[in-house]
């Protein structure tokens, strides 16, 4: 690279990984070569949504030449999980969803492995199944986890043994019962969302090698190598230091590669064929229901405001359909619970958020982590309240949205943000308030707005660490445990390291792949936390390295380190104006006068960051000093058209504005905003469909359609405001998930503006819109 960028923080420097990606040389998990000793795995999956496993007969499969091993639940007796250890690695006494792995085959080729999988005979005894989360809470509903009470669980999650409820979060603030009487307008609604899937373009791939020595390696596309190591080590009884997780570039994660899904199957299968790496690949169909999905939700929400438009009370119940195993899901229900007001100040709140077992694929982390699901209903009710009291929906939000310093629903003080500025910019960009003509007589045009908030949903103590090392030529290697999923983590980390060190951006490399053997610890690449948390660790590591350098050079010059600076890779003194390039001295140190000894040596900077201020919340009220680290807020305004002859919706413009604290790389933020807007829009039309027996009807790209190039809005106006985050590096906070949260409700509000019709259930479709139009005409 010929470029030379000083002070890169705040500049739209090119992505650090873009060259490899445009040449096709970037290595993804399936690209890694393992040589002729590589074996291949295939999973046998339950065809039933709920069934006892009576018998597994692998005799015929084992007789097939080339088959090396077959693994079943009997071989892997422990559960796996993060917050709630509820999931068997291979089904043991029963299968709980269509697609659950029941056995794993290892063979010398994928073909033989597949053939052998067909030969395994499993005897099932079907059990009644339940698919609706509300149904699943009723007495008499099939019980998925009779042993719920025996599962190890994090101390902030509260399952109800003897039921299908894996988490119940309660929020009690003020007094809703008396507050309703003071409301001039009350709106109540039930909102339903189906399961949807991440659909990363790269399906999951895992390769594992279990050596006779006890060293185990897992190569996989992972957002969280350290979390995967932790969970797999515990469930397979491998000492942490013996398990190595390596993650090359990730071809899209969106939360689906954040935890453990199929990877632990690969490791279990590798154990059965020690010395041979085993590759397990998901077909696209398996990717849909055999990895993880976004939970379904049934939300009952009631909100009231006074005649001046001040929000007074909210009562809400969330029933998240968490699927057969609720591990990550319980934290989603919790996060939804402590965020249930949306970004609003509501003095009286009664919220109950449940995570519920259902006989469906595993609900888990997906971009937004509960926020898209709950804002779908909240943002529509806000519009309805505004309409009832005769207020513009944008003004209603300006009035009621949470402001810096206010005491929010958990009792925490809202850190500084500016949601009003986001609303102002978003509405301006689509000419809010101006009624514009549709493009044809049979079309109707409408505009809608939605706002959002989200906090990183984490345990109270998630840590990041970073190492900054110099090379002889003063280029820098930054080691982190965080992953670049495409969001640009490596780029901003390099920018921050360069800025804090005083070297050009182009001198910095980020060490890839992330490898638990060499990379420093990172809790997980989730929660839009990397710019903030890993950024802090990298900044600290860079400052540590800088301090070391200045001390050495100051000693060499007989000066005070405080009078020295590093700029563009050169140390200089403010006092004497002497200069010394970093090259060489960052490894070799500096000789004393007349070579009477040396100072310094190889410069290695280290840093870490872990928030220390998050507190637990009261079980009965959800109140606590500090529920979360911070919130990011934003607004989206949408201008769309509906074709009344077909029901088709065309989005004309999306304006999307977020308070990012500090834009480390402004253009990368805009690319996140654009991608998020399209993902949010697409998600409104997506749904996994099942038949009455719980069998998936559309686990493929033909019948589960995601937005293509011809579906995108005609214009996307992305923008941001910067209200610094107190403990963010240069004030930065995350935005990667937030950008898709309000799109669906903003669309619903725009459709209402166009047609006068509300949609409380997702997915949207041309058919649904058309049918609603027909009903309205007839009615």
């Amino acid at each position, binding site marked *: 690279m010929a470029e030379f960028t000083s002070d890169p923080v705040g500049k739209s420097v090119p992505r650090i990984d873009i060259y490899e990606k445009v040449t096709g040389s970037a290595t993804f998990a399936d690209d890694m070569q393992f040589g002729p000793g590589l074996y291949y795995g*295939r999973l046998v999956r339950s065809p039933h949504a709920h069934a006892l496993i009576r018998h597994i007969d692998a005799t015929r499969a084992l007789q097939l030449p080339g088959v090396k091993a077959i693994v079943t639940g009997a071989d892997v007796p422990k559960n796996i999980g993060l917050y709630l250890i509820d999931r068997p690695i291979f089904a043991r006494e029963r299968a709980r969803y269509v697609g659950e792995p029941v056995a794993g085959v290892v063979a010398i080729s*994928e073909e033989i492995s597949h053939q052998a999988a067909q030969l395994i005979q499993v005897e099932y005894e079907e059990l009644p199944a339940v698919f609706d989360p509300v149904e699943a809470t009723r007495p008499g509903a099939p019980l998925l986890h009779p042993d719920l009470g025996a599962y190890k669980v994090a101390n902030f999650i509260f399952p109800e043994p003897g039921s299908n409820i894996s988490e119940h979060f309660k929020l009690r603030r003020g007094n809703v019962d008396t507050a309703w009487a003071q409301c001039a307008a009350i709106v109540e609604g039930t909102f339903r969302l189906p399961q949807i899937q991440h659909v990363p373009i790269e399906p999951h791939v895992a390769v594992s090698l279990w050596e006779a020595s006890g060293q185990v390696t897992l190569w996989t596309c992972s957002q969280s190598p350290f979390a995967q190591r932790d969970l797999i080590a515990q469930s397979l009884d491998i000492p942490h230091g013996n398990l190595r997780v390596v993650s090359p570039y990730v071809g899209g994660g969106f939360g689906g590669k954040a935890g453990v899904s199929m990877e632990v199957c690969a490791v279990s299968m590798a154990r059965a064929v020690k010395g041979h790496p085993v590759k397990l690949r998901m077909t696209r*169909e398996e990717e849909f229901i055999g990895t993880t999905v976004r939970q379904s939700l049934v939300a009952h929400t009631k909100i009231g405001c006074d005649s001046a438009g001040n929000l007074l009370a909210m009562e809400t119940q969330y029933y998240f359909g968490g699927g057969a195993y609720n591990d990550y899901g319980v934290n989603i229900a919790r996060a939804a619970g402590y965020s249930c007001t949306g970004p609003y100040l509501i003095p009286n709140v009664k919220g109950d958020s449940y995570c519920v077992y259902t006989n469906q694929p595993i609900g888990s982390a997906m971009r937004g982590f509960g926020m898209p699901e709950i804002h779908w209903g909240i943002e529509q009710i806000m519009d309805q309240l505004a309409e009832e009291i005769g207020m513009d929906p944008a003004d209603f939000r300006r009035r009621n949205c949470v402001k810096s310093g206010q005491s929010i629903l958990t009792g925490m003080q809202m850190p500084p943000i500016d949601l009003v500025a986001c609303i102002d910019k978003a509405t301006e960009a689509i000419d809010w308030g101006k009624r514009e003509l549709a493009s044809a007589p049979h079309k109707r045009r409408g505009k809608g707005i939605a706002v959002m908030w989200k906090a990183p949903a984490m345990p109270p103590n998630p840590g990041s660490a970073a190492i900054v090392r110099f090379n002889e030529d003063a280029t820098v290697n930054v080691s982190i445990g965080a992953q670049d999923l495409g969001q640009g983590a490596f780029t901003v980390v390099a920018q921050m390291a360069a800025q804090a060190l005083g070297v050009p951006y182009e001198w910095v490399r980020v060490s890839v792949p992330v490898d638990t053997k060499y990379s420093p610890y990172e809790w997980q690449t989730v929660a839009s936390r990397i710019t903030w948390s890993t950024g802090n660790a990298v900044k600290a590591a860079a400052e540590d390295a800088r301090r070391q350098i200045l001390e050495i050079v100051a000693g060499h010059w007989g000066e005070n380190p405080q009078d020295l600076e590093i700029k563009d890779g050169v140390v200089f003194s403010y006092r004497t104006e002497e200069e010394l390039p970093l090259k060489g001295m960052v490894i070799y140190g500096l000789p004393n006068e007349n070579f009477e000894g040396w100072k310094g040596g190889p410069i290695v900077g280290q840093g870490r960051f872990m928030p220390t201020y998050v507190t637990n919340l009261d079980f009965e009220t959800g109140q606590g000093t500090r529920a979360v680290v911070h919130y990011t807020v934003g607004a989206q305004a949408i201008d769309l058209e509906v074709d009344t002859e077909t029901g088709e919706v065309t989005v004309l413009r999306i304006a999307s504005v977020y308070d990012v604290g500090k834009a480390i790389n402004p253009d990368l933020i805009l690319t996140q905003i654009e991608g998020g807007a399209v993902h949010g829009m697409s998600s409104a039309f997506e749904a996994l*469909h099942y038949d009455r027996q719980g069998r998936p009807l559309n686990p493929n790209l*033909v019948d589960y359609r995601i*937005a*293509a190039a011809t*579906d995108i809005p005609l214009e996307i106006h992305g923008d941001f405001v910067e209200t610094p985050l107190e403990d963010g590096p240069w004030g930065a906070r995350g935005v990667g998930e937030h950008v898709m949260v309000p799109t669906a409700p903003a669309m619903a509000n725009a459709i209402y503006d166009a047609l006068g019709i509300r949609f409380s259930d997702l997915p949207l479709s041309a058919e649904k819109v058309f*049918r609603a139009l027909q009903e309205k005409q007839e009615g």
Partner: protein
Amino acid sequence: MFARPGLPSFDYVRAREPGQVIELLQKHGEKAKLLMGGTDLFPGLRDGAFHPRVVVDVKQLPGIRDILFSLSDGLIVGAAVTMNALVAHPDVQSHFPLLAEAAGAVASYQIRNRATLGGNLCNASPCADTAPATLVLEAQFILYGPDGERSMPAGEFFLGPGRTALRPGEFMTAIRFPLPPAGVAASYQKLGRCKAGDLALVGVAALGNPDPSTPSGYQFRIGLGSVAPTPIRAWAAEEVLTCSIPPEAAFSLAAEKARSAANPITDVRGTADYQLAMVRSLTLRALRQVGAGLKEGN
């Protein structure tokens, strides 16, 4: 239950002349599958719908990739002509724009470089994009088998979802399109679940031309796709358009008749009710477009 990784094993034979194909089809019956573009074959192989012992590639048969046109004989399209080749051909664009429009509506550019006209028709999916156009253009399908060559009108070829009138040992070699009447205008309307790239949820191919022998002075042909076990002609709708009533009223009535002709099923892609309503909407659109084209022609 889930599609397998990669393809199952089979023998691959590249046929050099038609007799070879017939021999293999007769020898292996159901266990031989023909390969042209593979865009229906490959998914079927992965799904387990087909378990062929031998896959016979017919793309090298003489003429099967050719497009021939003459003003006297019309258009002859080899069965293995790809959708993109059809769309790009100047004679197709000039004289059979409906066919170009229908072929161009299939999936994506990449798929259209492989998907063939013959394959689309012989797969006989009710939602095949090119099928309504062949009905409306009154195409003849050229079939070749143990008893030699025969020609069959498109309307007799489709028997049900995935079922055609091909006899054992027979395969399609070409599709012949007679030159449409003078002054013709046509339109293919397709509704998918998204703007492009999808299968047809509803497909309507409409064609109209001046015809002094009818009261209205025009003749129309309407083909419906994806809304019945086979692609169908909307005869009653066509009848309406020969009557002497104002065009907009005729179009509206014809669209209603087209809706009555349809018999869609509800599945994960859409309900029967919606598809019926869309037959009406799309037929109306197609007819209006044809009407505008006819006016222009005058």
